[in-house]
């Protein structure tokens, strides 16, 4: 009934065997195409690439990471990551994309397996899976739920079962190393080659250092950063050099310096003037801070809303010079946004999206001008991640 035909790739004419079945003309104007091609990416990430991670909220899976080229308004590829969504991790050499994936034995039920996926940075093909304790936090995804040590060797994963801990995976040896128990503290904020910070529920910072083999782990609990839950720090800080910049619900920046053995908390400063606070301008959204490292600029997503609107989307991005703590620009977004990110080159782009629409908006981060939108980026995208360029 069925006949299988082997067709040679890059052939100009179909084989004689095929000609017996199809009335084909070899003098066709268009030649037969090569078969079974799979594209690869360029060797190095481009600064105007951006990963858009989609939580597929109609089911809350699969998590999908779309790689988009902002200049060409084009998609470059994607990775499918299992149940829910965690951020990806991008080593600076561009050689790989690390994913954090949850899989059920029966799609949405049965035995849980959490894995770190190592995808080739050029082919996006899965190279290896590292099975880790099935404890990763299942939540609205924040960048602070997973991170790479500064030298890209250790992947640090925040667990919540609700017992809190950090899973450490050695990406050089490609193996899980150890789980560090961190009761009362959450998130994971890499702060050196063998160091990370966590935020604790009493508003103190946990400062954790570890040795290569994880045999030695030191935990230091700091003082409370704030006194009241009324103005807590959000889970969405950004790293700027040796500092973590936290932002509070009412838009104060708390800088935490990790350059020395003992962390130091700088004076808080406000992103808003008194007039702006009176007018109810405040930070909001799921990913509301971004840093341009070279220019020393902080981008923050603002909207007008009540004190409980800290997760509401914003319609403006305000730009600050971190050194002078001054606002330098207000960018009115084309569309409201729940997440922002900025590219790390000399002509930086501001990326933004609103989780309920699969549209990626691109503005010129310097001029604030709208550049373009890219449609159909998943169904409910939540996170924006740009390649690390060192």
């Amino acid at each position, binding site marked *: 009934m069925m006949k299988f035909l082997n067709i040679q790739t890059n052939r100009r004419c179909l084989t004689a065997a095929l000609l017996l079945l199809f009335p084909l003309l070899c003098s066709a104007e268009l030649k037969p195409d090569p078969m079974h091609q799979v594209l690869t990416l360029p060797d190095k990430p481009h600064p105007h690439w951006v990963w858009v991670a989609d939580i597929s*909220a*109609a*089911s*809350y*899976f699969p998590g999908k990471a779309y790689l988009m080229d902002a200049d060409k308004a084009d998609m470059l590829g994607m990775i499918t990551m299992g*149940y*829910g969504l965690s951020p990806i991790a991008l080593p600076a050499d561009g050689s790989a994309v690390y994913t954090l994936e949850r899989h*059920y034995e029966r799609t*949405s*039920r049965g035995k*849980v397996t959490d894995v770190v996926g190592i995808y080739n940075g050029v082919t996006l093909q899965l190279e290896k899976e590292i099975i880790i304790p*099935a404890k990763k*936090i*299942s*939540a*609205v995804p*924040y960048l602070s739920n997973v991170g790479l040590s500064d030298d890209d060797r250790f992947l640090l994963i925040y667990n*919540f*079962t*609700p017992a809190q801990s950090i899973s450490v995976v050695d990406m050089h040896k490609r193996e899980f190393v150890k789980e560090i128990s961190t009761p*009362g*503290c*959450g*998130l994971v904020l890499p702060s050196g080659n063998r160091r990370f910070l*966590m*935020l*604790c*529920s*009493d508003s103190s910072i946990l400062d954790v250092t570890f040795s290569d083999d994880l045999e030695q782990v030191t935990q230091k609990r700091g003082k409370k950063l704030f006194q009241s*839950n*009324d103005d*807590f*720090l*959000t*889970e969405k800080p950004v790293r700027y050099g040796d500092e973590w910049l936290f932002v509070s619900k009412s838009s104060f920046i708390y800088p935490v310096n990790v350059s020395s053995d003992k962390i130091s908390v700088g004076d808080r400063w406000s992103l808003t003037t008194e007039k702006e606070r009176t007018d*109810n301008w405040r930070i909001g959204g799921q990913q509301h801070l971004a840093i341009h490292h070279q220019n020393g600029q902080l981008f923050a997503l603002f*909207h*007008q*809303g*009540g*004190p*409980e*609107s*800290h*997760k*509401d*989307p914003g319609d403006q991005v305000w730009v600050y010079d971190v050194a002078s703590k001054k606002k330098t620009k207000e960018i009115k977004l084309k569309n*409201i946004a729940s997440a922002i990110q900025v590219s790390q080159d000399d002509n930086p782009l501001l990326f933004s999206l609103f*989780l*309920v*629409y699969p549209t990626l908006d691109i503005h010129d981060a310097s001029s604030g001008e709208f550049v373009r939108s890219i449609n159909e980026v998943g169904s409910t995208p939540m996170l924006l991640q740009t390649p690390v360029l060192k």
Partner: protein
Amino acid sequence: MNKKNILDKWIEGYSRRIANVTSRRSFITRLGTVMVGMAGIPLLPVARAAGGDKPMDADPGDPKSCDYWRYCAIDGYLCSCCGGSVTACPPGTQTSSITWIGTCRNPADNKDYIISYNDCCGSAACARCFCHSNQGDTPTYMPFRSNDINWCLGEAYNCSTAVILGVATS
């Protein structure tokens, strides 16, 4: 063509709050990091009619609407729209063993109630009646009032209920 879908609902919910720039009164009762844990309690299957009952005078509003008072700190799909009720999970799901809580004011008696937002688990999301309110919501590192966490934890999330634990005195 009827284009009202989940995305529109999300937008509606957000837009309402974006439009409302005056701050609503905060009903937060500070509880610290207490976890209401109920692991090991067996499921209690109940027939549908019983589970859907709710005294209307003392508990005003529509449990299928995001405006219903108990949902002041919820984030998810309303079980009332998913085959469950405001207090019960839909057929085919399991209740989460632990929960997050909020404090919501009942307009009927003007009292603040402690609400336990018990998630229903073991199935893909219901995707009906998305509701996202953040009264008293805390960040995920202060977990037990955080609605960003999937309280099904190791299981898949279907929808959220809003169960009264009791009244909070001010």
